[in-house]
């Protein structure tokens, strides 16, 4: 078994062992398996990275199993390890391992401890399949698999109907996107004749383009990406996904799985380079999503909901980078975002842990002194996401803003304006969150306040590591590292002059957000309340998330329900199918009812029938014999 296969299989092993034996072998064993195997997978990923470096960055390919052969086309479970895979695999295994360790503290009291780790390992397996897969087919298996793991983990506490429903919502919304992804795969296969991603990219970038519109393929794949990466119009599942345990939100719904769409687009950059229309759509959707989610985040009071909308918004940033052709920059943001968003979510988990399960930031406040480690790491990550230099978020966001303006593949002042405004909102709502949670007077009830305690070292240790990474991660220039694989777009002529303007602007924006939040929430509570009162209507709209769920309910769910009920159920199912079946059954029943009268139970009649039959057969024999 090759090293790449090993990376993928290790978490699967963890899933099997924990899933089958976990409940019998105790929490210590489950923790050792659950954290140990991802850690080994991380080590293996590092080894692969070093091998890759040693081989002069020539991609490593490895075929684990030939699934089937159709004519000349073979479908195989093959893995592919190049610079992009390296970045993603290291993030997934690294952050994944950290979050597993954190979970040992966070989930310690849960009675389904083994099941939790089994699911988490399963998720890691599928995510690695997704990231390491050489062909779209393997990627798709991983893609569906992470959806499954996400469903299982969102609905982890399935005793609560609301949480179970959130799991279903995530799964179903993702299905819509997956339909697009599948169609994209079909189109690619019929046009190119293979699903191997290196081949597809080569086919689209070489002179003789395949006989299919790159934009069509691009849009179809992007529909899949909108589902998994929570973009308009399919983002609605992600905020609800916060029903899962907080480490899950950190791992799946912030650091790794939701970036799968970004990875897909970056991986298939060969197609998008030839699909300007699709790229424009991606940039527009990304910008809109970023703006919309950021505005919603302004008015949310649930600590995890704020972070969820912030995730949606940051994903929008990544898609803007993808849309303007700066694939490396998008992956850079995936990478920094993985650190600071994981840190934020885990910090939120630590806060919730300290607050005995309370998630409403209106009922928090003044936690800074009581849980100092959580506070410092959270503050650092907040500064990183807001874009305060020299933290990691500053670098990646600055790059995105710069290419939103300067990219020769669709950069514009309008895009920059939208993104800059969103960045301002980001800084503002993140510092608002920080202030309401950690500063000011405690607003919680006495009992909760009495119980506030710092989390165990397994949790705070992970927080510290992630905070350090989100602080210094930006110094590793991922776009530069990925440049041989996915080149950065050319800068529009005459734009070089604005580079320092953008850098300065983004610093100013971050600071403005900080100051604004400090002004409104740091001092007198009345200031925020006054603003809120004067924009009551807007606030209500934002607080209710633009009523998108209600709109979907009114215009999609209800008509669908109506159609299902009136047409499919009443007409199709009951009348047509049931009717036919019941009709046939009743005909059979009536016939049988008549025939069963033959079965009189009277032995005499049976014997008489024997006689009749005998006479008849004799007569027939004499006649024909």
């Amino acid at each position, binding site marked *: 078994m090759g090293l790449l296969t090993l990376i993928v299989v290790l978490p699967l092993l963890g899933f099997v062992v924990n899933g089958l034996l976990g409940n019998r072998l105790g929490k210590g064993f489950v923790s050792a398996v659950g954290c140990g195997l991802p850690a080994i997978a991380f080590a293996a990923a590092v080894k692969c990275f070093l091998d890759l470096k040693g081989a002069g960055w020539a991609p490593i390919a490895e075929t684990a199993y030939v699934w089937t052969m159709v004519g000349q086309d073979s479908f195989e479970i093959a893995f592919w390890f190049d610079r992009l895979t390296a970045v993603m695999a290291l993030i997934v295994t690294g952050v994944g391992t950290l979050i597993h360790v954190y979970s040992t503290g966070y989930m310690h009291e849960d009675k389904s401890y083994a099941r939790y780790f089994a699911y988490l390992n399963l998720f890691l397996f599928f995510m690695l399949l997704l990231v390491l897969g050489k062909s779209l087919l393997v990627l798709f298996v991983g893609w569906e698999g992470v959806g499954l793991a996400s469903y299982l983990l969102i609905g982890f506490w399935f005793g609560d109907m609301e949480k179970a429903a959130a799991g279903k919502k995530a799964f179903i919304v993702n299905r819509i996107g997956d339909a697009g992804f599948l169609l994209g795969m079909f189109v690619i296969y019929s046009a190119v004749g293979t699903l191997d991603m290196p081949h597809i990219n080569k086919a689209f970038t070489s002179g003789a383009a395949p006989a299919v519109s790159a934009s069509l393929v691009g849009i179809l794949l992007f529909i899949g990406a909108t589902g998994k990466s929570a973009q308009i119009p399919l983002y609605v599942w992600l905020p609800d996904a916060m029903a899962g345990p907080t480490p899950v939100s950190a791992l799946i719904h912030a650091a790794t799985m939701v970036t799968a769409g970004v990875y897909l687009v970056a991986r298939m950059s060969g197609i998008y380079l030839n699909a300007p229309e699709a790229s424009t759509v991606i940039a527009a959707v990304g910008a809109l999503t970023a703006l919309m989610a950021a505005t919603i985040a302004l008015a949310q009071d649930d600590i995890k909901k704020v972070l969820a909308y912030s995730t949606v918004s940051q994903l929008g940033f990544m898609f803007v980078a993808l849309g303007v052709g700066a694939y490396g920059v998008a992956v850079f943001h995936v990478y920094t975002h993985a650190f600071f968003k994981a840190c934020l979510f885990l910090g939120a988990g630590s806060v919730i842990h300290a607050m005995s399960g309370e998630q409403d930031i209106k009922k928090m406040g003044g936690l800074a002194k009581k849980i100092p480690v959580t506070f410092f790491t959270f503050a650092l990550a907040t500064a990183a996401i807001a874009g305060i230099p020299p933290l990691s978020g500053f670098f990646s966001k600055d790059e995105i803003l710069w290419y939103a303006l300067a990219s020769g593949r669709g950069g514009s002042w309008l895009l920059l304006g939208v993104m800059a405004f969103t960045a301002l909102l980001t800084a503002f709502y993140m510092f608002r969150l920080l202030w309401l949670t950690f500063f000011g007077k405690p607003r919680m009830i006495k009992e909760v306040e009495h119980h506030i305690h710092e989390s165990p070292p397994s949790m705070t240790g992970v927080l510290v590591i992630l905070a350090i990474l989100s602080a210094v991660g930006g110094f590793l220039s991922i776009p530069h590292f990925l440049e041989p694989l996915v080149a950065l777009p050319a800068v529009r002529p005459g734009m070089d002059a604005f580079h320092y303007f953008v850098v300065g602007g983004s610093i100013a924006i971050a600071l403005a957000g900080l100051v604004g939040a400090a002004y409104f929430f740091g001092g007198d509570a009345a200031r925020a309340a006054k603003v809120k009162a004067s924009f009551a209507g807007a606030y209500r709209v934002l607080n209710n998330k633009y009523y998108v769920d209600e709109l979907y309910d009114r215009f999609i769910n209800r008509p669908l329900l109506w159609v299902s009920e009136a047409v499919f159920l009443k007409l199709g199912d009951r009348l047509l199918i049931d009717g036919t079946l019941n009709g046939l059954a009743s005909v059979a029943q009536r016939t049988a009812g008549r025939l069963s009268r033959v079965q009189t139970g009277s032995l*005499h*009649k049976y014997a*008489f029938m024997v*006689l*009749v039959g*005998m*006479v008849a057969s*004799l*007569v027939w*024999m*004499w006649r024909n014999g």
Partner: protein
Amino acid sequence: MTDFLAHLDTLLLWAFAGCAFVSAALMLVLRQPMRVAIALVSCMVFLGGVYGLLGLHFIAAFQVLIYVGAVMVFMVYAIMLLDPRDESGGEKFSKLLWPGIIGLSLLAEALAVGYWSDLPPAPRGAAGEPFDMIRFSQAFLSEYWLHFELTSVLLLAAVVAALAVIKENRRHDHG
């Protein structure tokens, strides 16, 4: 006199056959099961006579031994055991008396039509060759041993089944 003796075989055969037929017909009309049983026994004995006259002496012997001696004795026991318990005391014939009789006549007619129409005459193998006990025994135990064994298995099954039924009977009593 020799004439008479020469025809005695044939005469006896006809007489036995006629008596067997009459006994069989009586079975249908007698009311008491015991009388029916006696009619059947007599029919069987006459048939045994027929077999004897045909030279199938050992079949005749077994007819009397197995049928009359075992089966019918068993039947008579059953009648003695059950008949007093019969509280129906009802009709002798079923509702299908007339259809049965019509069926019988139709069957007879069909058979008669068969016999006397274009049915090929029964093949007569090595005619006149008397039935040979030795040949029969050899055939029975060499060619037909499988059938022999199968019937013995059937007998065994019957014994086991009878035991099971009686056991069920007992449980019923206690329950």
